[in-house]
């Protein structure tokens, strides 16, 4: 039956979505028609906006994310592992971490601007703060939720503490760590956009805020489309990396 065919339904859904969007856009202000968005994007690839072409802006945002994300994961993941493996480290760091954890990363934007001004440093700082929490939490929980039977096995096989950590802990915690990296990545996009909305002269957030200030909805929606594409691309990249690094991860079917 054609109604049960998934690909047919997907097609119908996309078609309906764009048709409704187009119809709505004709009657409403501040909603560009789909083809206007494509046109605007095409134009932005060649005409620089504030000294940068579209690709330049994409790179500006991606660069910030890469720097912040790398710093955060290099600090947070080892720290999380140490906290789970050593109870003294845990006793010192956990209370401070619990104190800072509930503050939304975006709340740090203002203090970052007071500290570092409106340059690159403050944006990278916000990304580091935002990505730090899930990286650390997942590394920590990843180690703590390792099945105890696995430790028993390695001990029976004659392993010492070092073997336990290297042979059991790390491989078993890898999937959780990667899940943390995935969450971090989406938070990093939120952070970089928010930081760019507040103050920036380049980046994807700058494109949409400029579109807003110039009352050009096509530019705003175009920026959103590019953000969606790039964010989706980086997510794919991390899941690809995950498959490469830990092929033993069990997948949940579907999403």
């Amino acid at each position, binding site marked *: 039956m054609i109604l049960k*065919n998934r690909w*047919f339904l997907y097609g119908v*859904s996309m078609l309906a*979505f764009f048709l409704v969007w187009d119809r709505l856009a004709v009657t409403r202000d501040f909603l560009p028609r789909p083809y206007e968005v494509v046109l605007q994007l095409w134009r932005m690839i060649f005409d620089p906006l504030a000294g940068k072409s579209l690709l330049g802006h994409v790179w500006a945002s991606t660069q910030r994310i890469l720097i912040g994300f790398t710093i955060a994961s290099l600090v947070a993941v080892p720290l999380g592992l140490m906290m789970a493996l050593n109870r003294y480290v845990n006793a010192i760091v956990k209370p401070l971490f619990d104190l800072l954890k509930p503050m939304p990363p*975006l709340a*740090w934007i203002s203090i970052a601007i007071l500290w570092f001004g409106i340059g690159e440093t403050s944006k990278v700082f916000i990304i580091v703060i935002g990505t730090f929490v899930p990286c650390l939490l997942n590394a920590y929980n990843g180690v703590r939720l390792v099945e105890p039977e696995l430790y028993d096995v390695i001990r029976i096989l004659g392993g010492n503490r070092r073997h336990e950590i290297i042979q059991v802990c790390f491989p078993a915690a890898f999937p959780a760590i990667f899940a943390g990296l995935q969450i971090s990545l989406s938070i990093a996009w*939120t952070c970089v*956009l928010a930081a760019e*909305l507040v103050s920036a002269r380049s980046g994807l957030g700058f494109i949409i805020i400029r579109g807003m200030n110039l009352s050009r909805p096509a530019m705003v929606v175009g920026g959103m489309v590019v953000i969606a594409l790039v964010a989706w691309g980086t997510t794919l990249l991390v899941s690809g990396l995950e498959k490469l690094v830990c092929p033993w991860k069990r997948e949940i079917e579907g999403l």
Partner: protein
Amino acid sequence: MAYEQVRVKTPLILRLLPILSIVLFFGVWQLVMDWGMVPSEMLASPIQVFQLFLVKWTEVNPDGALLSQHIWTSIQEVFTGYLLALLVGIPLGLAMGWFVVVEGLSRPIFEMIRPIPPVAWIPLTIFWFGIGISGKVFIIWIAGIVPCVINSYVGVRMTNPTLIQMARTYGATDWQIFKQLCIPSALPMVFGALQIALAYCWTNLVAAELLAADTGLGFLITMGRKLALPDMVLLGMIMLGLTGAVIGVVIDYFEKKLLAGIRR
């Protein structure tokens, strides 16, 4: 009781270290400010923040509202968006998990919208809704709906297939299986979504209030920055963290009560 409670004694030092760590943190922070190692326009000492906290309950200036008003506005915005996200997201996710037609029709649109961070909606929202409460609710709604849909969907998908086959064998209709098997088995995942969605909503509240607002905790922070008052910024941040944590605990309590009979 068949088992005797096993008490593992924690060494004294492990019980002291957390307290020490917190005390040291605030102590160093206070001392750094007292000795003037960090200029006072960049950071305020904990005592200053606490003083401002006491004063803000009765003092309207300089940001134009009492602390209680800021908190109340933020909670109102978050809860409206959050409840709407639950009301739309959970049924949609559950239906997407079971009915092929619903999944086929809504999945592509959902997948297109999902990677866009809610923050990116702010400019469009301001065009569409102006700077009133409805725009902020919309952003919070967008933020909250994604985890609701995903968790409910995965929850239904993880229903034990043997049970579904058994129900089929006994002649249950699609709707009966959905109602009596899939939904109960998805409940723990759905409740997991409550916490995640709340955290997302709370984070994006700041973003929603960042650009346009006249009360709210996010606005308090932004005002603090514009007036270069670090104690106000810090007070806003701490109140955000505190309120978020309290709401999280309340939801956790209800979750435990409601899920009392269901195996996790």
